[in-house]
């Protein structure tokens, strides 16, 4: 029996590949921002390490985590896209990605999404949106924290 299209779209080869061999997996040594995120109901977890450069751009981003293929692949694909991004690029991508997986809102930059557009299949599985967005919510939090600590940077030079 052939697999239903919905399922094939959800678990495309690229996605399964990212989930099996996550990119930028691991930790960054301090100084950096570290946040922990989870979806308590399903047990998905992520640890995300973020380092900004002198201009406030994303110098490095790494993660560890456990959870379903969608949450891990999404984290891996995000980490690939984010290396070297400016914060405004990052924020736009976060917003656009939410549109990809929920179908709500408009995408401001199709091209920037690249492979991430493949996660569109999640739209048919509303319960999985929180899996797909776990890493992204963690990144939002990390950026907020990093900016907070940068504001405080003069006081505690690293």
């Amino acid at each position, binding site marked *: 029996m052939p*697999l*239903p299209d*919905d*399922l094939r779209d*959800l*678990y495309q080869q690229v996605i*399964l590949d990212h989930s099996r061999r996550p990119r930028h997996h691991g930790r960054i040594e301090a100084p950096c921002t570290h946040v922990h995120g989870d979806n308590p*109901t*399903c*047990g998905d*977890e992520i640890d995300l390490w973020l380092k900004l450069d002198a201009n406030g751009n994303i110098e490095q981003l790494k993660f560890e985590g*456990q*959870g*379903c*293929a*969608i949450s*891990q692949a999404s984290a891996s694909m995000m980490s690939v896209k984010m290396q070297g991004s400016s914060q405004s690029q990052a924020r736009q991508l976060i917003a656009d990605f939410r549109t990809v997986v929920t179908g709500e809102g408009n995408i401001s930059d199709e091209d920037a999404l690249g492979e991430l557009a493949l996660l569109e299949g999640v739209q048919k*599985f509303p319960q*999985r949106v929180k*899996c797909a967005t776990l890493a992204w919510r963690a990144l939002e939090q990390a950026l907020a924290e990093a900016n907070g600590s940068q504001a405080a940077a003069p006081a505690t030079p690293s």
Partner: protein
Amino acid sequence: MIDLSQLRQDFPILHQQVGGEPLIYFDNAASSQKPRSVIDALVRYYERDNANVHRGLHELSNRATAQFEAARSRVARFIGAASEREIIFTRGTTESINLVAHAMAEKWGPEDAIVVSGMEHHSNLVPWQMAAQRSGASLWHVPVLDDSSLDLGVLKQHLSTGRVRLLSCVHVSNSLGSINPVPEICDMAREAGALSLIDGAQAVGHFPVDVAKLGCDFYAFSGHKMCAPTGIGVLWGRSRVLENLPPWQGGGEMIESVTLERSTYKEAPARFEAGTPDIAGVIGLGAAVDYLERIGLPAIEAHGTALTQRAVEGLVELPGLRLLGPPPGKPRAALASFTLQCAHTHDLVEFANTRGLALRGGHHCTQPLMKRFKAAGSSRASFYFYNTADEVDAMLRILREAINFFS
């Protein structure tokens, strides 16, 4: 013997397709399906007899009250209670346990201890954490051994302190399928002067349960897991123990006399049933008991055992599959919980769903137990008497397919 093809006709919900495939409902430990006779009991009640109970003298109220109390008697007989006055209606296992935890905690202090096992559902853990916090009592645990049984040596040590006032333990683990030695555990508690509460959410309706033989003081279960409607459950309590239990919720029906300043309370069970009860739910529970008794609990148990054995034998053959719970050959309730190397449980459950197969994935409200077995979660197939060997075989085929897909 159960004539399966006949029984399945009693369950309208089973005859549908999901994702173009026949529904295979293996999520019975989360909630069972309802036979026509239970649905009909609800409809009949609302179409003919609905009225508030106890307080009326008119015909509908009399009929509703008579049916409501008849259901209480049937439930009492069903679980071997000494009297229907030992049956308290609640929303479910969770509320039953909260009732005991709140009412008992009023009497506890820092010198007292509560014991629970390491395989409890959150519903039999969190209420005791809260009771311990409120009263200052200690909360102690009985570890789970590698073979999914309880470390009774540690239980003995706890009890030997003389500080344990109550032991609460699950009858059948909803995550492992272990069946705990309840009579032995309750004996130990009683000898140490502790009361015992048994969480029977996964036991009642699956095999004969007789509270007198078990020797516990409280027994809690949910209707929705045994063919009854959602929203109704039972706390059984030994009369002598209920007599000394203060009320928990206040309101109509549980009082004897009320002044603005103070109130006196009725005896059990009324004392513990404040407000308008779920009348239709109770009547539906009575109908579910009738239905299960017509089939016979021993037959239900035998069928569950056979299906589970077939499932377990097939599961352990699958590549990269780790079976949780009692080792093959040991007694196990009608469920099998497992992890796959190649796929997270949510991916597997999603896959299965597109094949019409309803599994449950996650921590099954037993986070500490999952941690104990170093599992982030598990996939669970749980069976009931309306499931068939063909469905088990189909599940094994679908799992094989999933393993191919995700590997």
